[in-house]
C-alpha cells in the first residue's frame, strides 16, 4: 500500500510522461461519454421542449416520471441493458455486450431523462415569455420548438454539461455492460475502481486527476461561453 504522497507523485509522473495506457483509458472515456451526451441531447432537448410547450391530459404525470427518471440508479440501468444485450436477451443477436456501444447505450438511458427534464424547465421559462408573440405569428409546433431550442442554446449548454458530468462520472452501469476489459471497455471510472481494489493507487489517482481536470475544463469552457452570451443578452 502506497502513501498518498507517493501515489500522488507517481500519478503526476504518469500524467506528465503521457503514459499510453492512461491516455487510452481517458480517450475511450471521452469517446463513450461525449457520444452518449450528444445522442442524449438530440433526444432530450426536443422531448423537453415538446413537453414544455404542450398542454395535455396527464402532463403532470409525464413531468413526475421525467423528474423521477433523473434519479435512475445506474446499476439498475446497467442490469436492464445487460439483460437486453446478453446472448439470451432480445437484442443479444447484435453482439453488443462488453463493447463501448453497450456503454454508450447505458449512459444514454441514464442521462437522456436528466437532459429532457432540465431542458423542459429551461424551455418552459422561455416559452412563457415568447408564447403570445409566437401565437401572434401563427408559428407551428415544430417552428416553436426550433425557435425555443435555438434561443435557449446557451442555457441548454449547461444542461448538456450536466448530462456529460453524470455520464463521465458514472461507474455502476458501464462496469456491468462494459465489463471493464483492458484495451476495450476500460474507462476512467471503472479503472479507478479496479486499480483501487488492487491497491495501485498511482494509476487510480492519475485517472482521478485527469477526470477532475476534464470536469474543470469543460465547466470553464461552458461558463466562458455563457458569460460571453450573457454580455450580449443572449441568455
Amino acid at each position: 500500500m502506497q502513501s498518498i504522497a507517493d501515489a500522488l507523485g507517481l500519478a503526476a509522473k504518469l500524467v506528465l510522461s503521457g503514459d499510453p495506457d492512461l491516455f487510452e483509458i481517458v480517450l475511450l472515456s471521452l469517446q463513450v461519454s461525449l457520444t452518449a451526451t450528444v445522442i442524449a441531447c438530440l433526444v432530450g432537448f426536443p422531448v423537453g421542449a415538446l413537453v414544455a410547450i404542450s398542454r395535455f391530459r396527464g402532463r403532470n404525470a409525464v413531468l413526475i416520471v421525467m423528474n423521477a427518471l433523473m434519479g435512475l440508479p445506474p446499476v439498475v440501468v446497467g442490469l436492464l441493458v445487460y439483460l437486453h444485450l446478453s446472448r439470451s436477451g432480445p437484442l443479444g443477436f447484435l453482439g453488443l455486450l462488453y463493447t463501448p456501444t453497450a456503454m454508450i447505450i447505458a449512459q444514454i438511458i441514464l442521462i437522456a431523462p436528466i437532459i429532457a427534464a432540465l431542458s423542459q424547465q429551461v424551455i418552459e421559462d422561455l416559452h412563457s415569455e415568447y408564447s403570445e408573440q409566437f401565437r401572434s405569428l401563427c408559428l407551428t409546433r415544430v417552428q416553436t420548438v426550433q425557435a425555443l431550442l435555438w434561443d435557449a442554446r446557451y442555457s441548454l449548454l449547461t444542461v448538456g454539461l450536466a448530462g456529460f458530468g453524470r455520464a463521465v462520472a458514472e461507474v455502476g452501469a458501464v462496469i456491468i455492460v462494459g465489463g471493464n476489459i483492458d484495451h476495450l471497455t476500460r474507462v476512467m471510472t471503472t479503472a479507478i475502481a479496479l486499480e483501487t481494489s488492487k491497491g495501485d493507487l498511482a494509476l487510480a489517482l492519475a485517472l482521478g486527476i485527469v477526470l477532475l481536470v476534464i470536469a474543470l475544463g469543460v465547466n470553464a469552457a461552458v461558463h466562458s461561453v455563457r458569460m460571453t452570451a450573457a454580455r450580449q443578452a443572449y441568455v
Partner: protein
Amino acid sequence: MAMTTASDAVDAQKMPILPLAVRDLVLRFGDVTVLDGLCLDLGASGCTVVMGPNGSGKSLLLKLLHGLMQPTAGQILWDRHGAADVTARQALVFQKPVLLRRSVAANVDFVLKVRGKDRARRNALLDHVGLAHKADQPARLLSGGEAQRLALARALATDPEVMFLDEPTASLDPASVLAIEQIVSEARDSGVRIIFVTHDMGQARRMADDVVFLHRGCVAEHSPASKFFPEPRCDAARDYLNGRIVV
C-alpha cells in the same frame, strides 16, 4: 347543395378581412367580468385609437380581436371570417416588445422566414425603422425606443392588413415616440388598418381618425376624433379628457 372548392378557399384567403363587427362580446375570468356585452363596428381604413381607464379591457380587447384569446360569449366578425382565421393577416405590437435572443437582423429574418416572406426585404425593413446600422447588434441590448421600432419592423415584415398596437410608446422619450408615430402613420397611409391603444392624450389627438372609449367593459363612446376631443358625448370620456379620475 353548394360545395366548397380549393379555389373558393384561396379566394376566401384573398378577400379583405375588414370591416370588423363585434357583437355582444363578453369576457369573464371566474366571477370577474372584464368585457360586458361590448359592441363595435370598425371601417376598412384609418387609425382607431382605443382609450379608457386602466382595467377597462383595452389590451384584452386587442388580444380577442387578434385571436389570441377566446371570448366567453359574443362574436367577432372580420368581414366573413372568424377571429381565429385572420390572425395570420394581422400583427400585434406589445407594450413590452418580446425580442428574440438574437441579433437585430436575425429577429427580422426569423419573422420573414416563418411567414414565408422574401428575406431580401430585411435590410429595407430595418432601414425603414432606422435600425439598419444596428443590424448585427444583439436585439436585447437595444434601448426601449429601438426595441419597439424593431418590434414594428417585425410586425411590418408580415405585411399585415391590420396592425394592433398596445401602448407601444409607454415610458418612451419624446424622440422615440415621434419616430414610432411616424412609422405607424406611414403604415396607415400605405393601407394598413391601425388599432392603437394609448393613454397619451396628445398622441391620441395626433394619431386618431376615430376614438373608441372603453369604460366598465363596454364601448362608452365611439366617435370621429374631430368630435371626440372637443365634444365627448359620455360623462366618463369627458372626465377622462379633463384629467379627472375615472374608475
